[in-house]
């Protein structure tokens, strides 16, 4: 299987803080990989390094065979890597449709075509009923949906989702899990940062665990939840006995 994303020895320091230290992992095409770890472990920083918002001090990021360190965020998006933000960042003054159209313009500058593509993405995430709503009036889950639709409208090959399930209630989490699964079956490669373990177990086949900026474990969900270091650093001892229910 071809590798979509290969990260090698990625490091970033903010002053005296080593936010990310020597992290390496890779993601195969059409695979969903989860990045987990306690707050401040360096998950979001890793996303920022991959998508060009921060420049790594060391290391390389190769996406679909090309080195992308040093490219600007918009170049990386044009190359096929789209991201969402941990705190949803919709263009509040615009309607849902206009938000998503702005993403669609990347591939086609014609407003009619962009509108059509945007509608497809909006329907995919299940926001069609809110098409004309100003983005600032959306609920949390709908804002997350909007972020996904906007990212999808750029027609990415790899999608980086930063805590799309934070702050959602259990039934909303189920909807979000279903959505991520749907994206995956569409052929997208997905890297997901998440805290909700139940969700991770059901969407990811491969998990990378970060703590204090370092990778402490990597493997299948089953391996990861059984790993002593992961339990100590992140999951807490109760997780040691939880069987993995959903192994897809």
């Amino acid at each position, binding site marked *: 299987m071809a590798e979509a994303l290969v990260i090698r020895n990625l490091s970033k320091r903010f002053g005296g803080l080593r936010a990310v230290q020597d992290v390496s992992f890779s993601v195969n095409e059409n695979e969903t990989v989860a990045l987990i770890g306690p707050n401040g472990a360096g998950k979001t920083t890793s996303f920022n390094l991959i998508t060009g918002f921060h420049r790594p001090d060391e290391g390389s990021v190769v996406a679909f065979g090309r080195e992308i360190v040093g490219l*600007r965020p918009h170049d990386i*998006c044009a190359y096929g890597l789209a991201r969402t933000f941990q705190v949803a960042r*919709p263009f509040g003054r*615009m309607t849902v449709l206009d938000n998503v159209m702005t*993403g669609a313009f*990347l591939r086609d*500058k014609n407003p009619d075509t962009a509108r059509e593509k945007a509608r497809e993405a909006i329907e995919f995430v299940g926001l069609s009923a809110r098409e004309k709503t100003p983005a600032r009036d959306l609920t949390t889950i709908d804002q997350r949906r909007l972020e996904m639709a906007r990212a999808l409208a750029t027609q990415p090959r790899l999608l980086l989702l930063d805590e799309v399930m934070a702050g959602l209630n259990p039934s909303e989490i189920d909807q979000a899990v279903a959505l991520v699964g749907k994206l995956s079956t569409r052929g997208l490669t997905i890297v997901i940062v998440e805290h909700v373990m139940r969700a991770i177990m059901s969407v990811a086949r491969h998990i990378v665990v970060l703590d204090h900026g370092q990778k402490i474990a990597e493997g299948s969900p089953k391996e990861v939840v059984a790993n002593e270091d992961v339990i100590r650093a992140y999951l807490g001892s109760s997780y040691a006995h939880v069987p993995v229910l959903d192994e897809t």
Partner: protein
Amino acid sequence: MILGLRTRNVAWLGVAVVILLALPLVVRNSFAINIFIRILLFAFIGVAWNLMGGYAKQLSLGHAAYFGLGAYTSTLLQIDFGISPWIGMFAGGVVAMLASLPIGALCFRLRGPYFAIATIATAQVLMLIFLKFRDFAWGAEGTTIPNLGNAPLMMQFDAKAAYYYIALGLLALGLAITYLIERSWMGYYLVAIGEDEDAAEAIGVNAPRVKRDIYMISSFLTALAGTFYVQFIYFIDPNIAFNFSVSIEAALVSIVGGIGTLWGPVIGTVLLETTSALLQRWLGSSFVGVQLTVYSLILMAVILWRPTGLIGVLTDACARITRRAPARV
């Protein structure tokens, strides 16, 4: 449907155009015509400013730089080389566009209020350059534009109405450009940058390039206004050409009217210019400075009461009227 306009809107626009075209034929009072010209001119500058300051929320307070560059370019071409201001006007636009490149490259490194302060400085620096280098462009004394009588080819007219029509043409040009940009990908990109530049970058918007391009368009248009203004008053000096109040006025009319909207700057100018002209006339002679106090109070009231601009009041009113109207089949 024409260009996405509804037939009814086209009809309204037609009525407005006819009224505006007929206005100088009906109103003969030169005080009134002067106010109309000022309104049209500042509405045009506001429209030019609004493209960048309103849609993309890049709050420039240095548009006087381009106003002045336009004014000086056409005047230098006219006096030193005898070139018509009609050509000089567009030459000035090109000079302003080119000047916006290095100015933008420096100022766009900053965001928010820091950007605004940096742009103020650029206009002030240009003013000082034109003040100090006398051999180049008459220094602080400035110069009068040679009066050629009625010379339409040199943008000089006996009739005030002619200037009115030029200003009207400029405003129409500015509005047409805004209308086209608003509906294209660029309009969406500008608003996206204004809302959240990082989020825009994340979906493939090349923010630095879009900002550079809109700054060039905005500067070009502002320079046209500069040329027109000196031709209208027959005089130029650095203090007139690069006056800070031009920068302020450009931003103010848009903010009061409603930034990031097609008609916002027009509505803002009509209100502010009319108020200031009338206050000047009524109160200016009795108590010196009192008209400025009243003007400031009105300004504060508008900004406190309607921070998103007066256009919101109008659209709300329209919505209320149409809702009350019986449903059309």
